[in-house]
């Protein structure tokens, strides 16, 4: 039987553990450090990737040894899926680990994180490991036609405006060519929207048709597949991406992960990040300029803003100014706060104004 790339990489990883022990050395695993202190801008691709600092998990400590054992169990599980041609969700794998005794995961975050570690260690994608996330409900609305491969193996043609209801076309977890083909696109740009309420508002107001745009509902922090689809549309069809979120520190992070890449997935930023994405708002300046209804920043909000000031991804004049303004006024605002001026205000006034400020808008 032919060895898959995943199996080959796994064999290398396990061999190094095994030979350490046989040679009387304490086994350890070394990989790129996956925190915000270790992401650097890759000038070639304009996205943020992991830098040179590494972390070492050594079996000398109980935690390190358990980590290595868990990794071995995960590899064993993935190999068995590859051999039997099955796949599982990340959540299913978490539950399966219940049977791994000492190597059982404490929480799903831990097993998700380890699946990503395995990507970093092997330079492969989790699709190669037969692992997939849950559907997360992000959707797209607008004049684009795609072909999605169904479970019966046939490609089905769907127009994301005419063949779908008001909630749009749900973005599948795998948006690579093998699963999703992008056919005709008749739009000038993509507007990525954080909340469902605002997405529905723009759909009801017919903003996609009026402005010749594709509306993408991010559903909070966007899933990998949502970011991957934005990336494909951006590079394959040259569509600019504009991001429209709430005005708070967490929404700034949503933009950060779309434009610069997320810290957790910096190893695959090249596949996911859209460095040319632009932030529409809500900015701290919008809160002042549009006199929006606000909420007070909580202690956690303030801490998040301060941490963003130290985040290399936000180290630009625009972001430093916006973050400092928000800290100064001590306020945040939701996208839907624009309804203060009526239901049409966002589509008739706010978005056209903000879009016209940005280069490349063909209004």
């Amino acid at each position, binding site marked *: 039987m032919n060895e898959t790339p995943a199996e080959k990489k*796994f*064999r290398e990883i*396990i*061999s190094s*553990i*095994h030979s*350490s*022990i*046989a040679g*009387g*050395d*304490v*086994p350890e695993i070394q990989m790129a450090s996956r925190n915000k202190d270790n992401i650097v801008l890759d000038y070639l691709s304009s996205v943020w990737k992991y830098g040179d600092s590494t972390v070492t998990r050594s*079996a*000398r*400590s*109980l935690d390190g*040894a*358990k980590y*290595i*054992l868990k990794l*071995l*169990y995960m*590899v*064993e599980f993935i*190999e068995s899926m590859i051999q039997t041609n099955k796949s599982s969700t990340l959540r299913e794998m978490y539950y399966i680990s219940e049977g791994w005794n*000492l*190597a059982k995961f404490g929480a799903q975050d831990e097993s998700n994180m380890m699946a990503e570690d395995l990507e970093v260690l092997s330079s492969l994608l989790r699709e190669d490991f037969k692992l997939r996330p849950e559907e997360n409900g992000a959707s797209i609305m607008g004049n684009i036609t795609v072909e999605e491969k169904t479970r019966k193996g046939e490609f089905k043609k769907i127009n994301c405006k005419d063949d779908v209801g008001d909630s749009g076309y749900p973005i599948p977890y795998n948006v690579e060519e093998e699963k999703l083909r992008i056919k005709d696109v008749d739009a000038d740009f993509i507007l990525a929207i954080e909340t469902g309420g605002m997405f529905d508002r723009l759909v009801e107001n017919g903003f996609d048709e009026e402005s010749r745009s594709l509306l993408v509902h991010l559903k909070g922090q966007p899933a990998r597949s949502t970011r991957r689809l934005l990336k494909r549309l951006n590079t394959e069809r040259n569509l600019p991406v504009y991001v429209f979120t709430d005005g708070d520190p967490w929404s700034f992070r949503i933009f950060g992960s779309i434009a610069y890449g997320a810290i957790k997935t910096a190893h695959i930023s090249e596949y996911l990040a859209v460095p040319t994405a632009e932030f529409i708002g809500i900015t701290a300046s919008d809160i002042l300029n549009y006199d929006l209804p606000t909420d007070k920043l909580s202690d956690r909000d303030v801490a998040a803003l301060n941490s963003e000031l130290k985040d290399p991804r936000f180290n630009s004049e625009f972001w430093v100014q916006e973050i400092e303004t928000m800290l100064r006024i001590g306020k945040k605002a939701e996208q839907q706060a624009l309804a203060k001026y009526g239901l049409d205000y966002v589509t008739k006034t706010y978005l056209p104004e903000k879009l016209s400020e940005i280069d490349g808008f063909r209004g």
Partner: protein
Amino acid sequence: MSSRKIDSPSEFRETSISEFFEKNRHILGFDSLQKSLFMVIKEAVDNSLDACEEYQILPDIYVEISRSGDDILTAVIEDNGPGISRKEVPNVFGRLLYGSRFGTLRQSRGQQGIGITASILYGQITTALPSKIRTKMRQDDVAYDFQLGINVKENRADIISEKPVIWEKESGTRIEIPLKGKYQTGKQSVFEYLKESAIVNPNAQFTFIDPEGKKVRIERVVEKASVPARSIKPHPMGLELGELFRMARAVPNRTLGEFLLQDLSRVTPRTLDDMTSAFGIDFSIPVENLEIQYMKGVMDAFSSVKILPPPTDCLSPLGSDFIRRGLKNIYGELQPLYFGKPVQRPVSVHNGNPFSVEVGIVYGGNLPAEEQVRIVRFANKVPLLYQPGACAITRAISEMDWRTYGFDQRGGKGVPFGPAIILVHVFGIRLPFTSESKEAIAGIDIIVDEIMAALKTAARGVRGFINKREKRSKIYEKFTLVEKIIPEIGSKSASLLGLPQPDISMVLSRIANVIFVTESFQRNEDHYDVKAEVVNFTRKTATFKLYAEPPGVSSPSETLSFDVSGLEPSRRISFEFRVNGTFNQYPGTEYYFTGIDPVWVQGAELLPPDYFEEELKIEAETDE
């Protein structure tokens, strides 16, 4: 006040007090419906416990609350105390301030004659109904049933009816008070009050029936009557001018000097001589001729001469045994892992009145770790449920930095967080309270300091327990690592690669180059079968002597010893023994060793050189 002559002070004061109560009952704690019910029960129960203590009776207290209208309740409190003589009943229950032990002082629970009459009066005011009293003394054949109200104007009892009845009880008193009130459960409820009373009275049995008819019994766990506190005469430093003057005038036909020598403590002829020579005070004046101004001069003189502090052997602490057993009885179901040795401070003096502090702490087990510690406050063996914020006990706890003792505390101030119950008992003569209803101890510095000193000693015990537990769990972690995880990493990686098992012994001694001592146990009905295992992860052969001190062992002569001889690398040896008795949670054996460098051993301590002597000394101390 000043020098107005009061011919019949008692009559004047008594009448006004009943009326005064009618108008200002909140001062005695009868402020809300819930609180009033609580006060009625509390006053009666405190009296019962005081009476039982005085007569060395093991208390058996019965409390029942029943509903006779929307907010009209009937409270019944019955005890097995000494009973009250028939002719004293109108005085005890019908007159405010009756029975205050005039001229002598002593640590007691009750409010010296205000409480129970106030309760009856409250019932009368709110329901217009009389209370019912039944009481029997041991020497009487029959009990007497009274229906009794209070004549507010004249400060005396109105006896509505009185009749002899047969009562199977040897002695006791039963009080039935109708009142307007509200029954609630929770932190400031009657039931909580009884529960906390049971902590400090483990020699009492409590039965409680709530308005729904639900019955709860708290059993007696100590078969020993409490020792009543001794009365002492007032100390000169503990008296106000008015009090001193009144005492002097209470008994005629004696001189000022005779009065001071007879009625006050620590006043000697020498004291009087000093005062005469320094201030020219004439002690031969008859008390009848004393002017209050002159008495003021006497008082000032007292503060300038040397007087011994008041006697300190007149207090009645709960004692270690009561605190420990009381806490176990009430909180045992939470299975705390650590019952601290209760701490008692030496007696201190505040304003001429002796007082002291006791503290007990229980920790761990199923106590909630994320919440603030639970504080149970007592003053003179009475639970304090109200006004925690105003209390010296809360202040002492909040001002102490608990973080050094293994508790969480934000900024080192405030009530700490952790799985603990902290019992604080402040006891003494004339404890200063923040109000007449005696709900909180006043935050006097010396009292707060003493509480804090006791808390610190108790908290050190908790710290020691936490340290020991952390150390054990670290050793256990390391043992899991070398015994389970590393071998599994070896076998799993081998089987994934289809290779033979690697030899892990080198790696193990790299990670843990020590000899481990661990134990496992099997719980049986009344004992544990314990297996101590010694594993050599070093690269050298080891020989040494191992000692095991099983839990619950009180003498070092019961410490077991084993020889470990010629234990080769990667080899193990085990020893089995039996531990009698069972515990909530197996506390673990203490292991010691001799004959090998301590750096090579984990899970056991080097045997202290004076191990066998020290143990004997500690035992002698606890036997005192």
